[in-house]
């Protein structure tokens, strides 16, 4: 019981720390929010302009919703991915990495705190973007299966937590360039996961890689829910698959993290700035 209480306090340390970081770096947060918002609008306007671009009559409303779903889901998943992958990068930037790593907190607790924060923060941030973007376009979600979409999104978050843990080892391994490397990893996921186009558009070899990205299934399922009103029952297999894959990716991520942490301790790479 005592151990559980102590670990819960430890997890809350990371939640509270991240809330404080947002409060202190609110300027960055604002800039980042504006960037995401403008990005979402720009992508969605491509849909709005498709009729003019092609010179043909198209279902513009469908294309707008198609792109908007992609951009919002990506915005949410990337918040989860970056929040977790930055759990080490922040400590490096601030110089507190040694202090945090010598504290009696398990890496799992570290992760639980960071994940809980990331999910709540990701949902709130995506809601703000959705509300603002929705005011620019006429969205008809009357036939959408919203509860099914939320279920799918939460199931997909599990995998992104795992991917975030794997990406978090980069700043541990490469003190100077690790944080930038996580951007490259996120960009690859963006390319292959069918965020703005069907995966089938990609060359065959990229489609094979796309099958390994959890985001591919989340985004496809979300579109089925929101654009075609797919029933929750029909989504169950995808949800179970995403949860199973997520648990496997988290287990793999923790194993990789543990090994890399030991390597960092042998090689002396836990120094504050490298």
């Amino acid at each position, binding site marked *: 019981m005592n151990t559980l*209480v*102590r*670990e819960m*306090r*430890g997890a*809350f*340390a990371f939640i*509270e*720390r991240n809330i*404080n*970081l947002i409060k*202190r*770096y609110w300027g960055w947060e604002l800039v980042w929010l504006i960037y995401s918002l403008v990005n979402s609008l720009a992508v969605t306007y491509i849909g709005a302009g498709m009729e003019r671009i092609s010179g043909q009559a198209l279902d513009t409303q469908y294309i707008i919703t198609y792109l908007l779903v992609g951009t919002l889901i990506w915005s949410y998943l990337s918040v989860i991915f970056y929040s977790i992958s930055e759990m080490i990068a922040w400590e490096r930037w*601030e*110089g*507190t990495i*040694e*202090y*945090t*790593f*010598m*504290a*009696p*907190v*398990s890496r799992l607790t570290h992760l639980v705190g960071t994940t809980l924060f990331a999910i709540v923060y990701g949902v709130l941030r995506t809601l703000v973007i959705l509300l603002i973007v929705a005011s620019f376009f006429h969205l008809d979600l009357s036939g959408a299966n919203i509860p099914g979409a939320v279920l799918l999104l939460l199931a997909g978050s599990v995998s992104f937590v795992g991917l975030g843990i794997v990406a978090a080892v980069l700043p541990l391994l490469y003190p100077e360039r690790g944080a930038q490397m996580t951007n490259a990893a996120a960009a690859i996921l963006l390319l292959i996961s069918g965020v703005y186009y069907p995966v089938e558009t990609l060359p065959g070899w990229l489609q094979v890689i796309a099958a390994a990205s959890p985001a591919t299934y989340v985004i496809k399922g979300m579109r089925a829910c929101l654009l075609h009103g797919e029933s929750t029952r029909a989504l169950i297999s995808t949800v179970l698959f995403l949860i199973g894959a997520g648990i496997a990716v988290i287990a793999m991520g923790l194993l990789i993290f543990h090994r890399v942490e*030991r390597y960092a*301790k*042998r*090689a*002396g790479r*836990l120094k*504050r700035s490298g």
Partner: protein
Amino acid sequence: MSTPALEIRQVSKVFAKKGRDRARFARVKREKVVALADVSLSVNRREIFGVLGPNGSGKSTLIRLLSTLLIPDKGTIRVFGHDVEKEEFEVKRLINRVSVDAAFFKKFSPLENLTYAARLYGMPMREAREKMRQIMLRLGLKEETFNQPMEHMSRGMQQKVAVARGFLTSPTLLLLDEPTTGLDPHSKRDVQGFVRQIRAEHDATILLTTHDMEEADRLCDRIAIIDEGKIIALDTPKGLKELVSKRNEHEPTLEDVFIELTGKKMEEKEVE
């Protein structure tokens, strides 16, 4: 006989460092830097044990090994009987550290930083808040600075918050890695007084690394002199001074001991 607070046996640590004459696309040459070579020592409970040596002598590597931030290449380290590598978690619960660089979230206030630390160590917040206040006041920090961002505080004040953080969790083994470097004389005295008070009031063992000879002389029960990763002498301050007392006309200082044993001055090494 009771378990020593700290037992280090034949510990060595070597780091690989990138070579300077590295040609593009060529295989990176790595040179080996011996940080610690076959270091052995034992620290008793409630002892203030000093590790004295110039910059680059291996003091901070030793502290990092004890803090579970490094894994030794060879040898064993036990903290109150727990192996730092195999029983990492148990060791972490017993120790805390104050390092030469006050590492904090610079935009957070002292209270926010200390709250983060208290939560990491699983402390109940009601107890932690009261303790934070008491320690910071004892160290001479004014109440109005408690909620001020750390980045607006002087180096000395930041270091005092670092000391407060180290003591907050009541560690049974406290690792002080040059805690007074860069502090003004008044702040130095505050910190040194607090170290003595903690030892007198609590069941704490303190390992202090420093290159300040006077500080080591004033605070430590025993001192190990370390140079180029090796312990070259270990005794009480009085015992160390006796090593050179017969060869000097004046009352010997620890600096005399260091020069006698290493053939160099502490300042010479610091420039390197």
